[in-house]
């Protein structure tokens, strides 16, 4: 099993690289959003492939909640070596996945320091969730929020068709 830090270092470099080429020193909303959507797009493609590869031996998913449980358990364990700490839903297409010690935020701080920088490190993972959901047949919008590092919440909204 590969060392978990390998992915963490790679991810950190990805974020750093995208921000290093930001020509506008004043972090205007335009430039930031481009980089965030690039990261999200990367995560999306990776999520698509993982969504195909990981559930290979499992039985067919019967309903939406099964897919979300798969994300919280199997996907999270495969990528971050731990399960999601809590999954809540309003049973109307909105799910909140909470991770109390998100591995990508863990080495940064524990508390409110670096709170403004946190979204950059969550964009890839949001895309990852959205990509995996997409492969499994669910179109969704995934956003993340941080109240205090390293606790973060991923909100998955599945529009009713």
């Amino acid at each position: 099993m590969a060392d978990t830090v390998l992915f963490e270092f790679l991810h950190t470099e990805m974020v750093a690289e995208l921000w290093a080429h930001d020509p506008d020193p004043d972090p205007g909303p335009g430039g930031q959003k481009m980089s965030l959507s690039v990261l999200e797009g990367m995560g999306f493609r990776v999520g698509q492939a993982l969504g195909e590869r990981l559930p290979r031996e499992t039985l067919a998913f019967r309903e939406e909640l099964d897919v979300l449980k798969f994300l919280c358990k199997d996907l999270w364990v495969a990528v971050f070596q731990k399960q999601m700490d809590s999954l809540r839903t309003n049973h109307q297409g909105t799910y909140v996945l909470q991770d109390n010690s998100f591995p990508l935020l863990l080495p940064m701080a524990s508390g409110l320091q670096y709170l403004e920088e946190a979204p950059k490190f969550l964009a890839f993972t949001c895309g990852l969730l959205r990509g995996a959901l997409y492969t499994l047949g669910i179109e969704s919008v995934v956003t993340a929020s941080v109240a205090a590092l390293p606790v973060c919440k991923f909100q998955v909204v599945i529009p009713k068709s």
Partner: protein
Amino acid sequence: MGRGLGGRVTSGGSRDAVPGAGPPKMAVCIAVIAKENYPLYIRSTPTENELKFHYMVHTSLDVVDEKISAMGKALVDQRELYLGLLYPTEDYKVYGYVTNSKVKFVMVVDSSNTALRDNEIRSMFRKLHNSYTDVMCNPFYNPGDRIQSRAFDNMVTSMMIQVC
């Protein structure tokens, strides 16, 4: 072995029909259908009957959809990916398999090939699934495009020869 252009319909041609011997005995067709029900990959042998196999695969999609929706309503733990025999015709038997990502694999086997057992068909589907997963993980593959990977082609060829 002939190859179509850009991964369009190709035919295996792994065995030449004996002249004057009637219809070839071990014809096989393998198709990969996307979740939106368009073909990602379809290959059949021999050449002459391509359209017939396309039509067969197309009609089998209805049966696949039936089985999938039956699976959803069944309370029994009937959530297997392998769908089994979809429908038999007088010359051919059609088998199906659906992945968790709703990608369907359809395999047409010659009816006279009675030596082919259920677990052999299952293992062929598993190989197809594994190869498809590899295609998905290929960075040069854009999900939703036709499958043009040579490795996938070779795997399908080996299965068609095996059945033949």
